[in-house]
């Protein structure tokens, strides 16, 4: 359950593809709280069909961001301290050589959640190098469990004109994790991949036109990354945003709100804590 908000709230109830949630509005933050259904809770984002129970005067067209709007919304979002975990630790980066192609980035730690395959715990490949010539040390504690480093990016997808979440994950040796081990880290919520088909290069859902998770080059850095398909998240955010009354907001504020919502939605697939 994700619930954030301060101040007086107006609540409306919605059903969204098997999950019920409440969309409220505080003075300065959208409130999104998921109520768990007794039968289990699996938020997918294939078809978000909101069933309105009352009229709304707010505009409901999908919001397309331009690059400039994306940049402004990102900078506004990270400028102030937020109590939301998803928004912590991000910094704005410019493209190495070209203007207006910037993106958000941060580095977080994750760890293995279930026993992974032997790909990561590789032996020294037949090269027997074990040394036993060193004295025992009674003043050293046990080694901590292996942690993985994830470099995360929020970039602007020119194709879909919405933000996209790109990331890498590597082990302490500096080797990127294979997909099989990637999905077993604390980066992903356990239920996210339940109905997906995996190959070595991506995950797809049977009914979906697009792969959920695939490989691609970072749009600005050119380095190989994983990314979540952007229009899945964007579609959901649009649906959720259409329930909010944004009539009183300036355009820039709408985009900031939209981006906040985007992070929330992202947080239901990906563990977005810093």
């Amino acid at each position: 359950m994700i619930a954030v908000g301060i101040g007086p709230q107006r609540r409306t109830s919605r059903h969204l593809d098997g999950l019920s949630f409440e969309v409220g509005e505080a003075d300065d933050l959208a409130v999104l709280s998921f109520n768990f259904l007794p039968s289990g809770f699996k938020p997918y984002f294939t078809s978000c069909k909101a069933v309105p129970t009352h009229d709304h005067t707010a505009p409901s067209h999908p919001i397309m961001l331009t690059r400039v709007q994306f940049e402004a919304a990102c900078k506004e979002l990270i400028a102030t301290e937020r109590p939301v975990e998803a928004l912590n630790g991000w910094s704005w980066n410019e493209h190495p050589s070209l203007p207006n192609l910037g993106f958000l980035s941060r580095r977080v730690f994750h760890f293995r959640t279930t026993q992974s395959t032997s790909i990561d715990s590789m032996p020294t490949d037949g090269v027997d190098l074990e040394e036993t010539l060193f004295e025992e040390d009674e003043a050293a504690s046990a080694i901590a469990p292996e942690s993985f480093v994830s470099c995360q990016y929020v970039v602007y997808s020119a194709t879909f004109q919405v933000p996209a979440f790109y990331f890498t994950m590597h082990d302490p040796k500096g080797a990127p994790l294979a997909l099989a081990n990637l999905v077993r880290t604390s980066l992903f919520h356990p239920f996210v991949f339940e109905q997906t088909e995996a190959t070595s290069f991506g995950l797809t859902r049977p009914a979906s036109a697009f792969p959920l998770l695939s490989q691609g080059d970072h749009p600005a850095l050119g380095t190989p990354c994983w990314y979540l398909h952007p229009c899945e998240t964007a579609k959901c955010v649009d649906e959720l945003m259409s329930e909010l009354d944004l009539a009183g907001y300036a355009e820039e504020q709408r985009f900031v709100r939209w981006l906040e919502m985007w992070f929330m939605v992202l947080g239901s697939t990906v563990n977005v804590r810093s």
Partner: protein
Amino acid sequence: MPIVQFAPFSSLIQPSFWHELTSLKVDVLRLSDEALPISGSYSVGRSVTDRESGKEIALGCNLSVGSESFDKGYKVTAGSVPASGTFKNYNTIEEFKAADKTALFNQEAVKIWDHILATRDTALLNHFLLITYADLKKYKYYYWFAFPAFVSKPAWEIAEEGWKDAIDEFSAEDLSSIQEQIRSHPSPLPFFLVRNDAKISPVEDYSTFFESTPPSSRTIAFIDPSANPTNPGWPLRNLLAYLRALYPETTSTVRVLCWRDTETHSSSWRSRFGVLEMGGVPSDEKVRPSAVGWEKNPQGKLGPRVADLAPMMDPTRHAIVLSVRKHRRLNYLRRLANQAVDLNLKLMRWRILPSLDLEKISTTKCLLLGAGTLGCYVARTLMGWGVRTITLADSAHVSFSNPVRQPLFEFEDCLDGGKPKAQCAAARLKKIYPGINASGHMLSIPMPGHPVPSASVAQTKAEVEKLEALIAEHDVVFLLMDSRESRWLPTVIAAAKGKIVINAALGFDTFLVMRHGPRGSSVRPNGARLGCYYCNDIVAPSDSLTDRTLDQMCTVTRPGLASIASSTAVELLASLLQHPDGLHAAAPPPNQDPSSHHQDSGGSVLGLVPHQLRGYLAQFRNLHIVGAAYDRCTGCSETVLQTYEKEGFEMMLKAFNDPKYLPTLTGLDKLYDEGEAALESVDWDEEDGDADF
């Protein structure tokens, strides 16, 4: 009392570190295995909450290295502290295994200890050692970190009450003050002292800072990479050793603040505090203690680790995604292919030829006139040298007899009349190596002795212009055609434009490979002008193609000859490009001692730069020939070139149509007359036969 157990450092390597090491090794280090200084960094310990179990999981004491670790002016990010290190990369796995680890480790420990005693400085207390072996072809990196820490005998023990939260020892205001002082300190402060007035100072100021502070109010502190509540981080060990060495009287009991706070908006203080005591009679503080600290591998054993980056690089393990993103993946793989090709070439510079200028060769744009046996082999060999721009021109289509002798063609290329040879060859080059800039042009080269019918004049003019444009765009022209006279036009154009011309021609079991000399007007003073293909001719090139039998028409050669000649041609070019004088390189002096250094005696770093080579396959022998330029040459004399430059296509047309034009222009016709006259003037002594009978 329980012995203090310190949390060891865990190495954390960014992938960029390996990429940087690879470039460094290939371009700078090469075969050197000398120790290099590097830098790493660490920051306060962190823990994460496992969402599912609710448990707090302490992350390891990470000491991190990345590509910036090799930089001289290493700067840490805010909140981190730097650690200096010694780095040694071995050239073979055997050397890595056989390296005397104990000696290396002790060397670092001695370095740290001596530094403490000599400078009283804390700079090396978190110094580390890293040994590596990089298998660049398999993208595997073997490595082992060591974090030398002096062993305290007797061991340190934690007081009865154990470790507690720092907030239980210091007030919140004091902790905030300490945090602010750390943050505003001009340089990162891995170790510091704290007084009862919450002021902090570098450890080096111990005597003055604590002058009027009673021992019960003196606290030593350090940025603690451990997040474990009962285990302080590894850097504390050497800090304690430092204090024991320099201030033994006041440090048998030590108050320790493990600093673990950086963010300002955290709700609670994470730093820890404890009082440590020597667990017995302290040993002689001036004797260097033994040290421990080789990093254990994830299996808990003392041994090196392997980072296998091959799965990231190996295209077959990551199948290409069938989506619009395919081209991006291919671009990435193409970059990898480029690196691999470059690697092979750069290896030559490690030991064999450090002064080889590979860039010079790879950036040379080559035009290959002829995409037959010679053209295919020349193109392949040029690719081996890393040449990035190869253009082929040919007038024919691939025929059924071609593929076995012309290695860029396959059976399917012959079907349906056959693909155009030049374009087909270029496409095949791209399949072999996608990074190549290869193109092919269907082009017929007009020839002297083959008159141009008036209906075809416009087309011929267009062909000449196309050839002129191609030659202008490239640096080197390879003449690889199958007839003598077809080489004339490109010879003239290339000479006029000052391009390098490499000429290769095949007989049945003999070949000629030569370079054309520069044009007369550009020859340097005191330079001898070397000749071209036609310089030794006293007749103009004429029609050698019509009225030939089948075996005279096809260039019948011993199959091995083409590759020998082509390779020789490319290697001649490579040597020429390495020569400081390039196109103007003089011919090698005669009777040269084969063992002399070619660079010193007129050659290049690759060796000789001969003018002409004639190969005799029957004897497996090459003859080196020097052909001087001929001032009445139909191919490269100034008369011809200047007439071409003045009259252009008009002059060309005359040469194609009128067999007497070139001899007249150059004065060769006079030569015949002179020759006849000379013959006439010889006074043949008419002797009567001896009538013996």
